């Protein structure tokens, strides 16, 4: 303990003297991240030392997704990587947070996977679907059904843990499942011939993945957050540039223990959002093209499914100024 304290003192000392600006971070920012390609991407900035280069004292802690929400709610970390819908869930539970930047949206990683013989969502009428109710892929399913002029009442939902959906589909006791990668891919592997009938690529912006932070930290760390968002832009271009992509995928796959080839598939289903694109999504509008519209949609879903009772005030959850401050 004492050693860690001493070490952070040394680091802080170096920071104050090493940073070009006089107003370097007075204390460390602690952020949580977990196993999703859009967040594993931070590993590139960590491994390459870009955070330190930018004069930032940021510590990323790796969590299980729901454990990261617990840690944020307990005030032990300053920010966390979540979906916009889960940011609302956390806020409704009392852990105030504001989304300051968008990391990505799911572009095919979330899927409704049907058994062989079912050709489209329409064929699922009256059938059983294994899904973890109240979570993002439940939202995806409802969105897909709506486009077919159907509702939840046209199908039977079987509440299943997302990481068990591959076995649930293979058991033959349901006709389709909803899951994100790697579970959706594993489900197709476990039951050959199973295939996606609807994916998040058909509903871009339904689920945004964001960095959301404790609003109390923004006053003291405004400059840090702005630098952090700039580092993120570097990460996105490093991943998207064909010259550096292999190295980027290598770092990300190593973080989660997959081969780079397999990780490439997961990355393909994730649309990373650069600062320039993020600025457009932060513009207030209805519909899924805007974080406001998407978050409103998630709020309606959460209330309708009794995830929480009180509709949330969306404006209080979105802070566009830090992304807008980027050159």
């Amino acid at each position: 303990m004492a050693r860690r304290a001493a070490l952070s003192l040394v680091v802080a000392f170096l920071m104050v003297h090493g940073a070009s600006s006089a107003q370097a971070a007075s204390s460390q920012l602690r952020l949580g991240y977990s196993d999703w390609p859009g967040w594993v991407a931070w590993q590139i900035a960590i491994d390459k030392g870009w955070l330190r280069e930018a004069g930032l004292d940021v510590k990323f802690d790796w969590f299980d997704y729901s454990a990261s929400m617990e840690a944020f709610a307990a005030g032990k970390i300053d920010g966390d990587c979540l979906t916009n819908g889960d940011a609302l869930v956390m806020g409704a539970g009392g852990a105030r947070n504001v989304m300051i930047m968008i990391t990505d949206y799911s572009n095919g990683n979330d899927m409704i996977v049907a058994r062989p013989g079912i050709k489209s969502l329409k064929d699922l009428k009256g059938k059983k679907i294994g899904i973890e109710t109240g979570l993002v892929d439940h939202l995806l399913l409802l969105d897909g059904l709506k486009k077919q002029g159907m509702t939840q009442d046209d199908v039977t939902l079987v509440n299943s843990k997302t990481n068990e959906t591959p076995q649930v589909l293979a058991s033959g006791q349901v006709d389709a499942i909803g899951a994100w990668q790697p579970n959706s891919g594993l489900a197709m592997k476990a039951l050959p011939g199973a295939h996606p009938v609807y994916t998040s690529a058909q509903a871009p912006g339904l689920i945004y993945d964001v960095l959301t932070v404790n609003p109390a930290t923004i006053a003291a760390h405004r400059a840090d957050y702005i630098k952090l968002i700039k580092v993120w832009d570097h990460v996105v271009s490093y991943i998207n540039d064909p010259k550096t992509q292999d190295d980027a995928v290598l770092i990300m796959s190593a973080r989660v223990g997959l081969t780079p080839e397999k990780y490439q598939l997961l990355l393909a289903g994730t649309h990373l959002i650069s600062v320039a694109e993020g600025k457009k999504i932060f513009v207030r509008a209805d519909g899924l093209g805007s974080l406001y519209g998407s978050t409103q949609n998630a709020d309606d879903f959460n209330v309708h499914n009794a995830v929480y009772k009180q509709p949330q005030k969306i404006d209080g959850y979105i802070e566009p100024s830090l992304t807008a401050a980027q050159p």
Partner: protein
Amino acid sequence: MARSTLFRVLRPLSPRAKFTIGILAFVLPVGVWSLVSYVPAVWHPQIMITDAGSVSYLDAGSHMARDAFESEVADARQEGRAPPKGVRANPIYLPSPGEVLKAFYTSFTTPPETKDGQWLHQSLWHSIRIIFWGYVISSLIGVPLGVLCGAYAALGRVNEPFIEFFRYLPAPAFGALMVAILGIYDGPKIAIIVIGTFFQQVLIIANTTRKVDPALLEAALTLGTRNRQLLTRVVVPAVLPDLYRDQRILLGWAWTYLIVAELIGTTSGITWFITQQARYQHFPNVYAAIAMIGIIGLGTDMLLAVLGRRLFPWDRSLAKFA
């Protein structure tokens, strides 16, 4: 010879029989496992595809049910297309002993791939430290309290009903609270191990203390021992070998809470390895990690048993069954 010497009620085994049967205890389950893994006729309900042939949705390496595979082969033959090829296989959830053995070796020799990553032996050591501190903290309070509750009926009555109630509460349910109080690193993990161990510990130790031989107490009282001396000079020494054995069992108890404890706060230790490998269905690695925990647990227990025989040479029950 077998029946007459091996199966007699409460009769110790000869050292040689003890050794042989102890080995058999491991050979038998591994034998069954090998049989299921290596003899296709036993189970092997699936086909692992080696060549997809003309079937568009198959990939080499994927598994499918045997009857579905056979109908695909029949269809392809009938239509004059190339049939898929494959070999019989078990579901990926049941890797063979050979695969697990190989995973056991490679997981130690694979260097950490991220800069802030850890070697597997470092993760294991981290887990062992969590267990150690959880167990030590629990024992520092639990053992004295248990002895006192056992020795003094009034103290037992004050503590035990509540502890009896509390021990049924699932330790993992306190995860979020512990994070709020103790942070996100090792603190809450150790706390979960303490919560999982402590309450059982007090009750078990108290019960053991009550089993002290009444003849010893009477003899001591006749010789004029006073209240406090009776506890420190008679009761504690008398039950010490049994307390030691209880502590060995409780250490195993602490290990069972490790996986839930390490999922709280930042993911760390052997649990990081197990959950991450399971998430991507690398089951040989998962089984290898389970084996590691088993080996460490059994190894420590055997070590403590040997130590126990040294510490309490007069205790015959230890010598007989340890």
